[in-house]
C-alpha cells in the first residue's frame, strides 16, 4: 500500500542543509499496524507527514496505492485526504468552535455527502465510541482522552484505508492511552484498517504487529 524508495528530506540551514531523513526505504502492506519509534529529532514525525501527504520529500519516490504521489496534483491529493487517509494528532486538533457532533461531521461535509447519510454515519460512530451523550459538547468541555476519542472518530468517519497517528497518546495518562491503543487494535483487526503510528512508548508498540526504528534519519 505504501512504498517509499530512497526518500530524503532536508531543510536549508545557512549555507548547508539539515538532513532529517536520508534515503529511507520502506514498504507497508495493507492491513498492517506499524509503529515507528525512535529518539526525539530522529525524523519519525517527518516520515509520518510525508506518508500522510502533509509534507513533500526533498528527494525519492513515494507510491501510495501504487500511485506515484510526487506526481499527483493538489486536487488529487485532497481527494486522497478525503477518501483514503485519516489523521490522529497528538494535540487532538479538534476545531474549538464546533461541537463533538459537528467535528465528526466536517470530513463528510467536504465529501459533499447528503445530509441523511451524514447523520447516519455520525450517529453510528458516536454509538460505537460510546459518546452519544457528549455529542453537543464543545472540545474544551471534554477530558484529553475523550477529545482524542473524538479525534479518532473524526478520522474514521470518512472510512479511510489508512490512519496515520502522530503520538496519539502523547498527552494522555496511561489508562486512557491503553483504551485508545485497544481501539486502534480493534480497528486494525476487525475493520482491516491499516494503521501507522509514531510513538515513544514500548507498550504502545506492542499493540502493533511491526516496529520500525529510526535514528538520525535512517531506518535501523
Amino acid at each position, binding site marked *: 500500500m505504501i512504498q517509499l524508495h530512497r526518500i530524503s528530506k532536508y531543510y536549508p540551514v545557512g549555507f548547508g542543509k539539515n538532513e532529517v531523513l536520508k534515503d529511507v526505504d520502506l514498504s507497508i502492506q495493507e492491513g498492517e499496524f506499524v509503529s515507528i519509534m525512535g529518539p526525539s529529532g530522529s525524523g519519525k514525525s517527518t516520515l509520518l*507527514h510525508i506518508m*500522510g501527504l*502533509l*509534507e513533500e520529500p526533498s528527494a525519492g519516490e513515494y507510491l501510495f496505492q501504487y500511485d506515484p504521489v510526487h506526481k499527483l496534483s*493538489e*486536487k488529487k491529493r*485532497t*481527494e486522497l*485526504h*478525503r*477518501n483514503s487517509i*485519516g*489523521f490522529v*494528532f497528538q494535540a487532538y*486538533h*479538534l*476545531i*474549538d*468552535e*464546533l461541537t463533538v457532533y*459537528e467535528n465528526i*461531521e*466536517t*470530513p463528510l*461535509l*467536504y*465529501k*459533499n455527502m447528503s445530509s441523511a447519510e451524514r447523520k447516519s454515519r455520525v450517529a453510528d460512530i458516536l454509538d460505537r465510541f460510546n459518546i452519544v451523550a457528549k455529542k453537543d459538547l464543545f472540545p474544551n468541555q471534554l477530558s484529553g482522552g475523550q477529545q482524542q476519542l473524538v479525534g479518532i472518530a*473524526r*478520522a474514521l468517519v*470518512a472510512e479511510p484505508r489508512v490512519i496515520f497517528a502522530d503520538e496519539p497518546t502523547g498527552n494522555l495518562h496511561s489508562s486512557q492511552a491503553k483504551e485508545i491503543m485497544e481501539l486502534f487494535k480493534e480497528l486494525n483487526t476487525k475493520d482491516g484498517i491499516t494503521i501507522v503510528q509514531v510513538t515513544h512508548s514500548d507498550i504502545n508498540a506492542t499493540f502493533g504487529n511491526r516496529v520500525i526504528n529510526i535514528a538520525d534519519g535512517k531506518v535501523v
Partner: protein
Amino acid sequence: MITNYIKIAFRNLWKRKSYTFINVTGLAVGVACFALLALFIKHETSYDKFHTNEQNIYRVLTQYNDGAGQVNTYASTASALAGTLKSSSPGILGITRLGDATPVIKAGEQLIQEKKFLYADNDFFKVFSFPTIAGDPAKMLVEPYTLVLSETAARKYFGTTDAVGKMVTINDNQAYKVTGVIKDAPANSQIQYNVIASFNSLEDGRTENWNRPNYQTYVWLDNHVQSKTVETNLNASLSKLMDTWGIKKSDRGILFLLDKFSDVHLHSSIDGLTANMDIRYIYILSIVAILMLLVACINFMNLATARSAERGREIGVRKAIGAKRFQLVSQFLAESGFITLFSVLLGALMAGLALPYFNALAERELSFSLFSVVSIVGILVVLFVVITLLAGIYPALFLSSFRPVTVLKGKMTASGGGLRKTLVIFQFAASVFFILSTIVVIKQLRYIQGSKTGMDRSQVLVIDMPRKLIANFSTFKQQLSTQPGISNVTASYDSPVSTGGGYSINSFEGKGTNLNFSVTALPAEIDFVKTLGMRIITGDDFTMSDEIAAKNEENNVVHFILNETAVKELGLTPALAVGKKLSMNGRNGFVKGVVQDYNFASLKEKITPLVIFTEYGYFGKMMIKTNGDVHKSIASLEKVWHDLVPYAPLEYHFLNDEFDSLYRTERNTGNILIVFSSIIIFISCLGLFGLAAFTAEQRMKEIGIRKVMGATTGSIVALLSKDFLKLVLIAIVIGTPLAWFFMHQWLNNFAYHTKMTADVILMSAITAIVVALGTVGYQAFKAAVINPIRSLKMD
C-alpha cells in the same frame, strides 16, 4: 455546508467579541456615513435636473469689460433683453424673465412678508417643469396683476389649494388675482417660490427698459439649436441696437453669454437663485465617502490577518481532513459576509437615525424617499458584495494558503505584517490629511468671521424695505432716530455685504466723456457710510443737502462716493477724484468723497470698483445701528414700526448673520468635513486599538520575561508603542504634503484668505500622534501592568 459555515462564523465572532465589536462598529459607522454622504451628493448633483427641457435651458449672463483688463460677469440682465433675444435667433422655444422681491402680501386678514416671491413671464411654465394643480399653465401669467401660488402658500393664505380666482393685496396698494396653484418646488431646485406674479405686473415688464439690469433671463432652445449660435446672434443684434443709439464701437464693453441652467448649481462661479455648490466640494465629499468605507474595510482585513495565527490550526486540520482551498475561501467569505451583512443593516439603521442631525449639520432637508430607499437598498446590496469581497477576499486567500504541516507543527506566526503596516500607514495618512484639512477649513472660516472687511457689522439690524415705506422713509428715520437704543438709520438698494448691480461710468471729468468704466453701484441713503462704520479717506460723507439735491425732480443732482479701487483703476488719486463731475447710466453729479475699500461681496472675490450714490427711489434694505441692550432697541423699533408701518409685518435680521450666510456652502462643507473627518479618525483608531491589543497579546511572554528581569511599566509601554509610532510618523510624512497641496488650492478660491503656517502642520501632526498613542498606549499599559507570572504561565 453553508449552515456549517454560518454556524462556525457565528461562534467565532461570538468568541472574539471585542474584535467583532471593532469590526462591526467600524463597518456600520462607515456604511452609515457613506449612505448619508451619498444622499447628500445625490441631492446636490440632481439640482435642476428634473426639468423636462433640462438639457436645453440656458440663463443669460452679462459680461462687462471696461477695456482695462477688468471683466465682471453677472447673472442679471435688463428686462428689454428678452425681446431682443427672441427676435435675434430662430429656434427659441420660450423665454422667461425672473425678478425677485420681498413684498408684503395681504390675504384676507393676514399680513405676510413674503420672502419667496418671484415675477415671471408666462413662458415660465413652458420653460420649466413645475406641475400645475389648478389653473391653465398656458396663460396663468399673461395678465398684469395676476399671480400663481405654491401649494404651501395657497394653504397658508387661504387654507386650501382651491384658491384660483381669489384676491390678494400687495404692498397695500395693488390687488392681484390668483390664477393658478402649482406644486411646491422640489428641494433640488434653485428656483424656489411661494408666489410667482406675472412679469407684466412690473413697470419694467411692460416697457423696454435697458437701464435696470435687475432681472434674470432664461431661454429654452430647440434641440438642434446651438447655444453658441444664439449667443453670437444676440450679441450681433445688440451691436446693431447700439449703432442706433450712437455708442462708439470702442466703448462697447458688454457681452452676453449663455450658461447652461442645469450646470449652474455645481459648475458656475456665479450663484444661481439659491447658493451654488462647488463641484470640487462634491469631489472632496465623494473621496471622504469612499475613504470612509476603505478605512473600515482595512480594519477588517488587518484584524482578520492578524488573527490568522489563531485560525491557522483550524485551517491545518480542515486541510488534513480534505478541505479544498476553494471551500476554505468560501468559509472565510461566508464569515466576512456575515459580519458585513450585519454591519450594513446596522449602518442603514444608524443612517436613518442620524439623518436629522446630518440635515442640521448640512443645512439641508434631505430624506430617504421611496425612490432613494430603492436606490439605497441597491447601494447597500452592492456595498454588501463589495465589502464582503474587499474585506474578506484577502484574508480568505491568505488564510487558505497555509501549508497544513507548518500550522500543525505550531510554527505558524502571524505573517502579512508588511501589508498590515502599509494599510495602517494608509489609514493614518488619510487621517492626517483630514486633520490638516479640517484645521485649515476652521482657520479660514474663523478668518472670514474675524476679518476686517472695512465695515462695522456689529449690532446692525437689517429689514427688507416695504415698498410703500420708501416714499415716507425720511419721516420714519426721523422718528426712529430719536428713540433710545438707536444710533443710526439708513437704507440702500442692496445689502451692504452682498451688493450687486452692474453700472458703468460714462464720463468722468478729466478722463473723457465716452468712458465705459464698469462698476458695481449702490443707490443709498445719506447715512449709509456712517451707519455701517465705513471710513471716508478723502472728501466728505453725504449730507442733508445732497439728499435734497437728489430728491429735486426738476434739477436732480446725484452725489457719488467712490471706493479706493475705483479711484485707482480710473488712474487717479483720492484727492484728485473728489469734486469731479461724473455721469453714470444717465445720472449726473459730483464725486463727494472716497471711501476706504470694504468687502461688499463675498471674500472669495477681490474688491472691485464700487460707487455709492444718492438715489431715493429704489431702496430694498433698511439698516439700523443699535446701541446698548439690543432688546430695548428692538422694542423702540417695534413701537415706531407699529405707528408708521401698520401695513407690513416687522421682520428683521442681523447683518452679521447675513454675512455668515454668504459662506453657507463653505460652512456646510466645512462642518461635514469636520464631523466626517473625525469619524474617519475614529474608525482608524478602532482598527489600531484592535491591532495593538493583538500585538500586546502576542508579545505577552516577552513582556513577562522583561518584567521579571526588571523592566519598568513605562519602558514596556514605550517598547510596544514605538512600532506604531513609527507608522504614524510615516503617515504624517505622506499625508501632510498632500493635504498641504489640496488646501492651498482650496484657499486660492478666496481672494482673501488665511495663511497656511507651520503651526498648522505641527498641530495636525501632534493631533495624529496623540490620538494614535492614546489608542495604542491604553493597550500597551494594560499589557505592561499584568503580573508576569500570569503571562509566563500561559505556555
